[in-house]
């Protein structure tokens, strides 16, 4: 098969196409979908998932996973409320929360790369630990009196245009992560590690160090999202973002990243996130319950791996049959 054809039939191209089709159909058929107001809401809804998905893509490409991100988000959100109650200025709190998120990542990175523990088990442990610490910090209370200048910035738009302020943040971060992942030696190293970490090690890639820093970055981004989440809803709560980790993993896998590592692209993941957000948004406008949408999310997730496998199997069969025919003809 030619290179072009291969690229066009790869899952990430399919998912990008599917996303565009869904966006077009939804704009044409669903009332209010294409309005600027709805666009703003949609961007705000996909903000947490898309930001956390950026480092998560890299982590899954190296063949690891980080399930603690939503708990880190909850922890920094709770801390934000606690710091605010204790009179710290918001200008201090925001960088502090990001640093604390990074420290959560350091703990994950240490356990996984220095002690060599499996990331799935470690991050299930820290998922409980960080969420627990969030409750220890803030209990089941909420802190809501954050300054309007900050909460308005997060929910606001650029001037009178429909472009939300946070979209700038998404674009900048997505560009940085995209360039690092697809246009630098570090990015190539991630794929090498995911494909075969022993071989990567012997070709001079610092496997453990790379993975360690991925977890730190993942923690820092989760900390940032904790801040944004708190400001968006103007509510610091210990249970903010519960269960978001599985939604992020689902979006990344839907975007064509292999859970075994070594495969996947950031554009595919971005399309996956947008597809899920657009479907959710459109169905909500059509008064379909958000929970029933779970069926679509789950089915897409399974199909994203199942369909390429079936395609490969069918192609293999077809190839074998052709070889047999050729052999028969030669006789």
């Amino acid at each position, binding site marked *: 098969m030619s290179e072009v054809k291969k690229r066009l039939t790869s899952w990430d191209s399919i998912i990008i196409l599917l996303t565009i089709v869904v966006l077009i159909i939804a704009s044409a058929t669903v009332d209010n979908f294409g309005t600027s107001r709805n666009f703003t809401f949609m961007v705000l809804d996909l903000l947490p998932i898309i930001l956390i998905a950026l480092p998560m893509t890299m982590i899954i490409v190296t063949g690891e996973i980080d399930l603690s991100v939503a708990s880190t988000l909850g922890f920094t959100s709770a801390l934000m409320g606690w710091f605010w109650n204790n009179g710290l200025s918001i200008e201090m709190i925001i960088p502090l929360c990001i640093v604390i998120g990074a420290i959560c990542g350091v703990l994950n990175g240490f356990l996984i790369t220095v002690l060599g523990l499996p990331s799935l*088990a470690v991050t299930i*442990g820290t998922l409980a*630990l960080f*969420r*627990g610490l969030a409750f*220890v910090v803030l209990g089941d209370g909420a802190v809501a009196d954050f300054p309007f200048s900050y909460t308005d910035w997060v929910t606001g738009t650029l001037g009178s245009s429909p472009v939300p302020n946070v979209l700038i943040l998404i674009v900048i971060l997505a560009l940085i992560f995209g360039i690092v992942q697809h246009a630098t030696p570090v990015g190539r190293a991630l794929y090498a590690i995911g494909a075969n970490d022993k071989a990567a090690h012997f070709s001079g890639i610092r496997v453990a160090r790379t993975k360690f820093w991925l977890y730190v970055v993942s923690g820092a981004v989760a900390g940032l999202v904790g801040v944004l989440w708190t400001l968006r809803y103007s509510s610091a709560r210990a249970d903010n973002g519960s269960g978001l980790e599985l939604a992020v993993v689902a979006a990344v*896998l839907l975007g064509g990243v292999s859970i075994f590592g070594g495969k996947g692209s950031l554009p595919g993941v971005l399309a996956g996130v947008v597809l899920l957000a657009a479907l959710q948004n459109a169905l909500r406008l059509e008064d379909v319950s958000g*929970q*029933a949408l779970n069926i679509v999310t789950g089915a897409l997730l399974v199909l994203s*791996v199942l369909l390429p496998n079936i395609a490969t199997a069918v192609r293999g069969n077809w190839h074998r049959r052709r070889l047999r025919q050729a052999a028969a003809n030669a006789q």
Partner: protein
Amino acid sequence: MTTSTLGAPAPGRRFAGGLLKTRELGIVLALVVLIAYTAIDNPRFLSGQSIRDNLLNTAILAVMAAGQAVVVITRNIDLSVGSVLAISAFTVATMMSDNPGLPMIVAIVVGIAVGAVAGLVNGVLVRYGKVPALVVTLGTMYIFRGLVYSWAGGQQVNADELPAHFLSFANDNILGIPWLVLIALVVVGGVSLMMRNYRIGREMYAIGSSPDAAELAGIKVARNLIVAFILSGAAAGLAGVLFAARFGTVDASAGTGYELNVVAAVVVGGVAVFGGSGTVWGAGLGALLLTVISSALAVLDINQFWQQAIVGSLIILAICADRLVAVRIARSLRKRDAHV
């Protein structure tokens, strides 16, 4: 691993078996220390009612942990158990409120059957679709949950719609042991026995240690994997019946987030996430430990909010301990080989 059915165990295996025995001993010790400390602080912790409550609270988690342990031992994972519990609980609760005359056994059989079908779907997708278990069960976690929501909508089945014999099942005793606890004991004991003494159990361990080697050794990997997922689904289905009987109120959100508790119990119980080692009764003990911790915190008057943080630390501690044991086994095996 204790290998009594595979002839005389090799010396290395016996050594590994000894270490793994101490692994479960670790949980038992942790339990004893925790209970002793709490009981000294407040002797009522050892009262019949308190023990009964703890065991009742453990039962549902332990049943699910037994099924999950089998799946994890084969180097897979089942994240759909919380959603399967919801489907089973809602099915059974609806059925019992519509037909109050049905005996309890029918409820149990239907619950198990619903769970087994869900498990079959997972198993077929994992084995024949060649989709990784994490992806399949994450997907079916959403799908099954979505199905319950679209079926139930905002409705819930309340305790006053359920027949009395169904609700009293959770509190009824036989020989002083509540039915719920007895069922959990039978499930954990039965599955432990299967994994320890029967061919299919040993094959599960072989698959978890090395799926490729198991295939080459002539083990029917496909059949065994599907059995493992059916077991986990059936256990979650049974847990759904127990859930409905114990709590009386069932809505579409039943068991949300249980999957992580179940995996936590299994990991704390000493089953390695990369398969091939650990025991089912260890997972049952893990479930008991997690439950006792949360009730001990209440008795010790420690802020309830610490509970989750402690569970998290415990999971990390457990995998660190497993790692230590694994490193030690590897070192001792290497030493032995060097002498030969």
